[in-house]
């Protein structure tokens, strides 16, 4: 059995007096597709942001791809990681955001090529060749010269996926990537993610309210509540036969709100 690619060990995180993560532990296997569900404020987005090093942790340890994320080993002791170590670890991880966060002053092509050219020293021609492949994969090869403001939400999000993929991460984090989209644009983004799952062996973690998609897409579903994982299992177990009372009431509310499971 291979080693987990992500090992989260007793992570705690507070925002002021509010404890978002309370001794959270979890493991993710290489290539696994994981759906993180749960009510807002349950900590599911926070753990993605922590993995992307956008938030600092208060306590605990995280291992990514065999190395400590927030710590460095020096003289056999664990010390807080410096910026250089974090930069090295970030190469393994890519993230797609709810609000796309494209660089609005750069065209689609430059959004995708910027990071590979700056962080990996790729030549422009090589970076653009790779970018065109990725834009083709997300179905936007014809928009390479467009500015983000000229794109629909769904198109922006597909560019954001291409931008994250351009750095060839081993792990991709998707943070409610369809929540800000008009309903008719959701499917085009989900299709790209399905394609990505089918064509690559990338490890993918997604926080989502699209329960139907989570059911079809994920190998495993984690239900978060109050900073802990309350229940986890195969999509069928969680969605059809939830054991915990809190999981049941959450799914009932979600279905009542019109989400399809």
């Amino acid at each position, binding site marked *: 059995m291979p080693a987990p690619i992500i090992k989260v060990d007793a992570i705690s995180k507070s925002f002021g007096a509010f404890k978002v993560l309370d001794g959270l532990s979890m493991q993710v296997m290489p290539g696994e597709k994981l759906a993180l569900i749960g009510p807002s404020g349950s900590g599911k987005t926070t753990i993605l942001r922590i993995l*992307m*090093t*956008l938030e600092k942790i208060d306590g605990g340890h995280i291992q990514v791809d065999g190395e400590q994320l927030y710590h460095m080993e020096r003289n056999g002791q664990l010390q807080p990681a410096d*910026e250089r170590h974090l*930069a090295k670890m*970030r*190469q393994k*991880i*890519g*993230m797609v*955001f709810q*609000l796309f*966060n*494209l*660089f*609005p*002053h750069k065209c689609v092509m430059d959004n995708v090529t*910027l*990071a590979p050219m*700056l*962080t990996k020293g790729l030549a422009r021609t090589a970076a653009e060749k790779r970018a065109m492949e990725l834009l083709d994969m997300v179905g936007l090869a014809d928009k390479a010269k467009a*500015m*983000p*403001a000229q794109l629909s939400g769904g198109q922006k999000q597909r560019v954001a996926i291409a*931008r*994250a993929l351009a*750095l060839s991460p081993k792990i991709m984090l998707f943070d409610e990537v369809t929540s800000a989209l008009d309903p008719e644009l959701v499917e085009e983004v989900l299709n790209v993610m399905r394609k990505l799952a089918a064509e690559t062996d990338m490890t993918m973690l997604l926080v989502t309210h699209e329960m139907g998609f989570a059911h079809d897409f994920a190998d495993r579903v984690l239900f978060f509540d109050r900073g802990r994982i309350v229940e986890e299992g195969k999509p069928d177990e969680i969605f059809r036969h939830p054991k915990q009372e809190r999981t049941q009431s959450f799914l009932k509310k979600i279905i009542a709100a019109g989400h399809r499971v």
Partner: protein
Amino acid sequence: MDWDWNFVREIMPTLIQGVKITILATVLGSILAAIVGLGIALARRSENRLVARSVGWFAEFIRGTPLLVQLYFIFYVLPDIGILLPPLVAGVIGLGLHYGTYTAEVYRAGIDNVPRGQWEAAKACNLSGRHTWTHIILPQAIPPMIPALANYFIAMFKETPLLSAITVLELMNQAKSVANTYYRYIEPMTLVGAFFLVISLCSVVLLRWLEHRYGRIER
């Protein structure tokens, strides 16, 4: 008291010399203020508390004292410690430092207006701190603040007569000297006012254009 066109013709070349120096001082002072302002704004965001604090106090100190006093210090006091500057250089440094503390606030607002998601996307793309500033944050922060910066530069332009106090031969100083030579004030002073008015009005037109061109950003 009557207006003498012959006198106007006579003093015009001297005044135009002065206008050139005034414009030169404004342009150089603006460039310096733009650089100093950026430097202050970045230093105040430094993670090094000591740097952030001391630069903050320095800026407050400069802003809280009159430009004229600062000019006297730079030109007449610094030589006591061996720093002897030509008048124009001293004047440009005074203008640049003084207005730099104001443009720093413009930069601060411009930088704060860049959404947090841009910082996060830059981090997710693994850009270094320097690349995040140069490729992501500043290119978005600066265009919307160009009108506000230009406003300060126009204000600076109208304060350049203060440089006459440290012997810079700008417009006001030239006008004073011809006036004192011929004991006629009406023509030189009226012309000084007219020069400033014309250049300010032209600048305002330019400012409106800048506002139109850079004032908004599409997201």
